[in-house]
């Protein structure tokens, strides 16, 4: 694998960051919209080329400040990071279009949006453990910001819970950094791959446990996810889609990155398996208990994260590839669903199931988008969710983990039940509710089209995720690209 110093990876951070700054000063609406969309499009374009370059196995590295690894901070784009940045930029674009269409992009939101994208991309690209912490903080505070401006007192209290729990998670993170640095003498992830096996086991184990907790809190894993339903019920549609699609996935990504290359496990990881099962189950049960579209979807985020963790826990290339596939599929579908929910709230004024009915009659396209994304979420063919589920079942049964596969199957059935409940109550039934304007539906429709396309032709996405998984299972290429040996 060749090592190339390249300008691409840092761009996905710097461009949104600069745009955020420019938008801060409050230019007129049209300018701010153009700038904001331009920044996201640039990020998307860069991400696409990153994916194109890394799909063959190449790893792109840039060193901040020009200082070589491992004492300088590395910005690394391998196949996985490239895919994540691509999807983040896509969701940022779609969500922003929706937010603009709903007229909710004041200068705070516009700037905060770019900051959030910058932070998210940062977390994907950085190859340094402490820099990961910093990127988390950028992302988190941007999310706090987007979450709280314009909220009521009750919502502020829910936001407080979100902030407080994340602060505790940050504390765990810092303790972990201290432990790991003390034991290994480095913070560079590639370097850690080399040093962890040789370092004293006690601090390393403790550090790994703390990182598991910190990332797990962010990812919404069982039993750490309590902040999620509170926080995600607050913001309006476009922001909720960005949050719900991406924020937890940063935690999931970190788990995938760290618990494969830095702390690998031989054979399936029992702790993670149990956690995955619990997450899937408790998440879907939580969804069944809700009566508001937004809250139902929030709990489903938790439940679906369980599937991703299951893929990671299986620790085989097939399992990890399946997990990554699931991550990407879910981001698309969940954001789509949240945008539909947002469209409903914007036009009907409420997402409560007992106040909705007959939407399919007046909102044909919206109903179609919803049912596509909903069925995809439940794993029904011919959408991407089916293949995502199939891969995990295949991987799980291949290593004999029957119990967790059984749980995943049961949960998918319950997920279907939940989605049908929404559809039968809100979209079918009597009533002629007002029609949502096309501009609110189009962003979600784009995502629905993607899930259908992937479902019909999964090969493209699967080959990408398989390549990404390959890097994680055998990190030699990653390490040599970063450290130059």
């Amino acid at each position: 694998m060749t090592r190339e110093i390249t300008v691409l990876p840092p761009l996905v951070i710097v461009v949104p960051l600069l745009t955020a700054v420019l938008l801060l000063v409050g230019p007129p609406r049209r300018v701010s919209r153009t700038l904001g969309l331009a920044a996201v499009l640039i990020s998307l374009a860069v991400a696409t080329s990153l994916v194109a370059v890394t799909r063959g196995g190449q790893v792109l590295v840039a060193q901040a400040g020009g200082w070589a690894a491992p004492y300088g901070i590395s910005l690394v784009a391998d196949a996985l990071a490239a895919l994540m940045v691509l999807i983040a930029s896509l969701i940022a674009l779609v969500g922003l279009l929706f937010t603009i269409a709903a007229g909710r992009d004041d200068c705070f939101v516009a700037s905060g949006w770019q900051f959030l994208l910058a932070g998210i991309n940062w977390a994907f690209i950085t190859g340094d453990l402490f820099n990961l912490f910093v990127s988390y903080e950028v992302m988190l505070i941007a999310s706090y910001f987007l979450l709280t401006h314009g909220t009521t007192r009750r919502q502020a209290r829910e936001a407080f819970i979100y902030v407080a729990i994340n602060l505790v998670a940050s504390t765990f993170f810092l303790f972990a950094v201290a432990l790991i640095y003390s034991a290994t003498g480095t913070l560079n992830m590639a370097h850690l791959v080399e040093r962890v096996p040789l370092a004293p086991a006690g601090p390393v184990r403790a550090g790994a446990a703390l990182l598991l907790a910190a990332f797990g809190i962010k990812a919404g894993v069982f039993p750490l996810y309590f902040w999620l339903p509170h926080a995600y019920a607050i913001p309006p549609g476009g922001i909720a889609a960005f949050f719900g699609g991406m924020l937890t996935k940063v935690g999931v990504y970190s788990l995938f990155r760290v618990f494969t290359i830095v702390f690998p496990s031989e054979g399936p990881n029992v702790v993670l398996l149990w956690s995955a099962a619990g997450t899937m189950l408790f998440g879907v049960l939580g969804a069944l208990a809700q009566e508001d579209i937004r809250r139902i979807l929030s709990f489903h985020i938790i439940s679906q994260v369980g599937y991703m963790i299951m893929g990671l826990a299986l620790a085989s290339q097939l399992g990890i590839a399946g997990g990554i596939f699931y991550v990407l599929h879910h981001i698309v579908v969940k954001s789509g669903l949240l945008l539909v929910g947002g469209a409903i709230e914007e036009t009907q004024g409420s997402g409560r199931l007992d106040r909705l009915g007959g939407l399919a009659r007046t909102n044909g396209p919206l109903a179609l988008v919803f049912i596509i994304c909903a069925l995809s979420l439940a794993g029904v063919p011919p959408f991407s969710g089916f293949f995502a589920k199939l891969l995990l079942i295949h991987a799980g049964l291949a290593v004999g983990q029957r119990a967790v596969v059984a749980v995943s199957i049961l949960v998918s059935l319950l997920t279907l039940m939940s989605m049908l409940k929404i559809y039968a109550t809100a979209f079918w039934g009597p009533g002629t509710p007002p029609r949502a304007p096309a501009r609110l539906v189009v962003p979600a429709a784009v995502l629905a089209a993607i899930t259908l396309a992937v479902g019909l032709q999964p090969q493209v996405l699967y080959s990408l995720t398989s390549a990404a998984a390959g890097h994680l299972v055998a990190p030699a290429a990653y390490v040599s690209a970063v450290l130059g040996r």
Partner: protein
Amino acid sequence: MAVAVALLVGTLVATGFALLLGRSILRQIIGLALLSHAANVVILMAAGLRGGVPVIGVTRGPLTDPLPQALILTAIVISFGVTAFLLALGYRMHLFGGGEDGDD
């Protein structure tokens, strides 16, 4: 010396959580601040509690590890920003009247 500082860390964490698990918003924020202090001290301990000020030419003898200090600087600033934000959030929660009670 390590033991003493470790005890400090432990105390800060314990008191921090004790406050955080309490009821009043402001005390919870104080608790979070204590937790941040604990984290910062722990990071410094990763420098090994030995060595002199890391300015070249000033200190005789071995210099202490500068990296943890840089990390702490960043962490201090970040938690300061978040704490200030939290205080503002607490204020916002109070804005429409009512108790300071953090729950229900």
